[in-house]
């Protein structure tokens, strides 16, 4: 009430725009947990808004996380259930799907390093984030990535140490880029996109055949495919373009020339409504 004394009506309008800004209070938390055994763990990462970098570590740690967060709106999560071997990391408080889209300087930041020695079933739930996920060298048994309005780069810079059961990506209005999927050591990849661009690069060290389901509602789907891998493409499109890039049509699918002779095969089912599908054969 006393503030009104000073804010005489003449000046209320003059200062009102300056008082609408919500105060932020940034804090940093560092959390790590020593590695006790190499049993399988389930890791759930939840991050609403900001920048997130994930990588691997060879240190004797299950994980190491550095988190910068706004304590006025968010609360850090670092929960570990030793019995269930479940680890939950990130922040809560902002809805990942509807979090504010602010400038990078005012955003939080999360840096996470996961053990390369432990088999991990990894689950990401990201909001309005700029994510750089280099999961190369980890021992991933499964990967599920759900993100809202994000700019995500998923990279398997080095081969995955375990055979991954499945790789599921569900992105909303986003830009999603996956690099070196050949190193993922996975047989089934599911990519579901809303609006935006999805770019899948299948370079890397192939160890098995792969089946990819890519579904993009509105936007551009770009696939970078190694020439030494046999390609079979099924396309379902409506008001969308498809660049065949020398593939030959047999029945209801398009095949590469080396389909019968290639060591590894990629079966791709691509579906888009508005936009385009572009294939890029790389050496």
């Amino acid at each position, binding site marked *: 009430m006393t503030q009104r*004394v000073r804010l005489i009506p003449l000046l209320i309008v*003059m200062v009102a725009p300056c008082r609408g800004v919500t105060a932020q209070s940034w804090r940093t938390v560092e*959390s790590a947990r020593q590695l006790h055994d190499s049993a399988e763990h389930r890791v759930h990462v939840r991050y609403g808004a900001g920048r997130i970098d994930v990588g691997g570590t060879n240190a004797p740690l299950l994980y190491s996380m550095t988190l910068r967060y706004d304590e006025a709106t968010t609360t850090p999560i670092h929960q570990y259930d030793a019995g269930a071997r479940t680890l939950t990391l990130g922040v809560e408080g902002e809805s990942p799907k509807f979090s504010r889209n602010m400038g990078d300087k005012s955003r939080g930041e999360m840096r996470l390093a996961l053990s390369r020695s432990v088999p991990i079933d990894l689950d990401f739930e990201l909001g309005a984030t700029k994510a750089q996920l280099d999961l190369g060298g980890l021992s991933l048994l499964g990967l599920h990535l759900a993100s809202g309005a994000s700019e995500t780069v998923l990279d398997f810079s080095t081969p995955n140490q375990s055979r991954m059961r499945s790789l599921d990506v569900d992105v909303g209005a986003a830009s999603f880029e996956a690099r070196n999927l050949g190193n993922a050591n996975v047989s089934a990849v599911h990519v579901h996109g809303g609006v935006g661009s999805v770019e899948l690069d299948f370079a890397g060290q192939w160890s098995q055949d792969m089946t990819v389901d890519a579904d993009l509602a509105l936007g551009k789907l770009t696939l970078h495919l190694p020439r030494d891998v046999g390609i079979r493409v099924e396309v379902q499109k409506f008001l969308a373009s498809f660049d065949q890039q020398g593939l030959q049509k047999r029945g209801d699918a398009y095949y590469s020339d080396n389909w019968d002779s290639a060591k590894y095969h990629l079966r791709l089912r691509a579906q888009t409504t508005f936009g385009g599908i572009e294939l890029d054969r790389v050496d």
Partner: protein
Amino acid sequence: MARRISAAATIPVVALALISSLSTVAAAQAAATSRSARPVATTTQLQNQRTMSDRLRRQIEQMRARPEGSRLPPADSFTVGPRAITPTTPVTGSVAIAEGSLDVSGHLDGSAYVIDGDIVVHSGGVISGDAVSIGGRVLLDGGRIDGERLTLSAPATEAIRAQAVPPLTTWQSIKLVLGWFAVLAIIGLGVLIFAEPNMDGVVEAMEESFSRAFWFGLLGEIMALPVLALLVVGLVLTLLGILLVPFAVVAYCIALAGLLALGFLAVARLTGSFWSRRDARSTTTPRSANLRALFVGLVLYMGLWMLAAIFTWQPMAGAILRGVALAVSWVAVTVGLGAAMLSRAGTRRLAARSRGTGPARRPAPEDLAWQTPTPVTGVTAARRPAATAVKEIP
């Protein structure tokens, strides 16, 4: 006989005294044994608790109230100052210290919590639970932490300070009102010096129709934001105008603030002129009369806020007075804004006068003060110099 009686009586007394003293010694020894059986840490903890300041206690409780500090033990569990756990003094249970570091070279069968200090686990040291440091670091120097290693930056002092800011005192409120009065008086003086004709125009618009000015001002207040939005949208639609949007927004806000200020000062001058007319016979120039009217008007309006400030100590009366001051000030600002808009910040009147179609300037009450109604004893009234009789706007 008497001695026998006395001796006989003395023996039981002495015996009772001996028994009593022995029991006291035994009790004291038992108590001492009991105390010595307690962990050394507990004794130290009790001593240190006496030195824990209220500020630190509050800080710990505030941290515990936050989600990230929920695992902290109560403030009473904390000791103040550095502490060491050596191989010869293993500790069972959690250890919590503040304003000091914890050096662990032995075995801690529990968790460690440190506020404003480091946790250092040396070679051979083991913490079987979590190691939590707030405002410090957790360092592994060859030791082992079985639980979580958690480092949390110190809470923002601004947040704590903001919670502890007391409300303004009566004297502080009065000073604030005086400060704003001074600011408004300076602005008013500047307007009178550099833009007096504009203020005259606003005052005349108010005098022409008070209610019209009020409703126009109310409409202006309601439409202020939509007009700004339309302005921005219009600029955006022109594409090239997008670059001008920030400048347009700033210019619009400045213009609006200027209209509000001009209008409020004009209302204050008009209100003050009613009091000034009582001194109509004084021989002052129009500008000084206007200045006095403005000053009196500001005193009146700010007087309401001053009254509210004086009653800050009494919440109910203070709130009512602030409500009254707010309502009166809002009406004044609304009328002033409406008049400023109607007169286009006073320029409409100036334009009309320059074309010669507008009404002649209303003389200030002091302008007519020199005239006498009728000549006295055949002496005609003296004429005032033309320059001050009617102030013409070039």
